[in-house]
């Protein structure tokens, strides 16, 4: 069973067609990257997949369930997690509580009203593991807004990992990271087990090459190429789209 199956997805803003007849699927444990120039529709696709915008037409199947019109929080309960291109954190809350909230988002204990959130020992252990992945355990009491941008970006990613998702959507995960941080992020994603399927978009082709088994290319809302990273690199259509120049982040 495919973890994700997208069928004939269409999305438009007014008269502007943003996604046109998008169909693809992801099998369990796969790492798929989507690339394309800015404005190609990648973030819109992520918003549709994660339930923030309904598609105009088409179907989305997550782990066999039709989630096309399902609300975001219910998709999370099914095992979908997503990171955002622009940091989307709980700014004034301490870092630890950001992570605890992320862990608890798929637990029934999130409705509990009497015991303190820090009394859930298992979650504290998980939070420590996650924060140590990015070396931020010592900063756990700081409000996340006080962290540096690169640190916040890393928090952005580990929040998505917190629920041990079946399908992880990463929207430009390495944007704004240094080479070292980007490398660390790549290692974290590589170390994810096959229980987690990863679908990410990136401009950083180093990340695409090191992580992706398969790549799809989005151009003005249409999928114009599919293949392994090596195949995509030499595909004439793709070279034309990118004007023949590979983009590297600084």
């Amino acid at each position, binding site marked *: 069973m495919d973890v994700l199956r997208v069928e004939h997805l269409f999305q438009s803003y007014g008269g502007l067609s943003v996604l046109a007849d998008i169909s693809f699927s992801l099998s369990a444990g796969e790492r798929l990257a989507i690339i394309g120039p800015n404005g190609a529709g990648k973030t819109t696709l992520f918003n549709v997949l994660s339930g923030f915008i309904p598609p105009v037409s088409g179907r989305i199947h997550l782990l066999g369930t039709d989630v096309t019109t399902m*609300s975001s929080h219910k998709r999370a*309960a099914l095992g979908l997690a997503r990171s955002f291109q622009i940091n989307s*954190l709980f700014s004034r809350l301490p870092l630890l509580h950001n992570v605890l*909230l992320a862990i608890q988002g798929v637990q029934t204990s999130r*409705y509990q*009203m009497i015991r*303190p959130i*820090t009394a859930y020992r298992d979650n504290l252990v998980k939070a420590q593991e996650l924060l140590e992945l990015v070396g931020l355990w010592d900063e756990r009491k700081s409000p996340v807004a006080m962290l540096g941008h690169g640190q916040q970006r890393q928090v952005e990613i580990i*929040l998505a990992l917190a*629920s041990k998702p079946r399908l992880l959507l990463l929207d430009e995960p390495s944007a704004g990271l240094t080479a070292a941080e980007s490398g660390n992020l790549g290692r974290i994603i590589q170390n994810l087990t096959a229980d987690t399927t990863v679908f990410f978009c990136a401009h950083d082709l180093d990340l695409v090459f090191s992580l992706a088994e398969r790549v799809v290319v989005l151009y003005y809302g249409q999928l114009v190429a599919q293949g392994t990273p090596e195949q995509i690199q030499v595909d004439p259509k793709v070279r034309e789209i990118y004007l023949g120049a590979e983009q590297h982040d600084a």
Partner: protein
Amino acid sequence: MKRGLIRYTPVGVIGLLLITLPLYADLSIISLFTKILIYGLLVMSLDLLVGYTGLLAFGHAAFFGLASYTIAILSKHFSVTSFWLAAPAGVLMAGFVACLFGLVALRVSGIYFLLITLAMGQLVYGVVHTSVGPVGALTGGSDGLGGVAFPEIMGFAFEAETYYYLTFAAVVICALLLHWITKSPFGYGLQGIRENEIRARALGYNTWLYQYLAFIISGLFAGIAGTLYVYYNGFISPEGVGIGASGLLWLMLIIGGTGALWGSLLGSAVILILQYFVAGLTPERWPLILGVCFVAVIMFYRGGLLPQFISLWNRFMNR
């Protein structure tokens, strides 16, 4: 450990002063502090919505007034004076209406939520202010309803001093419950929704349900405050229900500080103590003085007075 305990000294001192109040204060001061505690609880219930969840609720006095009116109506028109019947009825009425109002108000957000809650508060005001017809007869119209005596519980007849203790105990218990709620997973869920509703939803939080539950819980605690109030005051009028009353709550909330329950008690104390002294000197200038204080706090102490007290105490401790 010792350091941690010293941190609570101001709380301990205030608590001690409040517990022993009837021993050294006269009746008017006891009455004042009963009112401060009741309004402190009411503002705390509002802070749960405003400070913790980020919902700008502008008709909050309605839930307070509904509880008071329910008890007054039961007492006057149905001769129900048993505390064990009337008090829960008052609280549940506030909670029930919160269930209804929440369904309507949470269909919108931001400024529209503010306007709808304001309108619903005025709706309640309109109903209790009606002077004509059967509704007017029930609510007493613009005159309000009186004749609510101090409760009698299990044979013990309360009066001003002992009622102060009852209020103190009730408010402490409610404040403790609210404190636990704010530190719980649910409470942090609310704060997450305030900070970033989109992210909360992406993480699996049914944000509508969280806001709805917060609305109802807030209404219930406002109802408890209203229940305590009508027995204390003996009387409830439309002025306790409408936009003026809700506005006063917001002043207390802003002056005290949002997002921390102590701020609510502080705001209530500051305004009511100030009002007590001004009423004795120049009652007609009270709105002016209140306005000046409010503007001063907004201009100089944006987060309210509580953070100022906290930092003063911290500076004193770190000397």
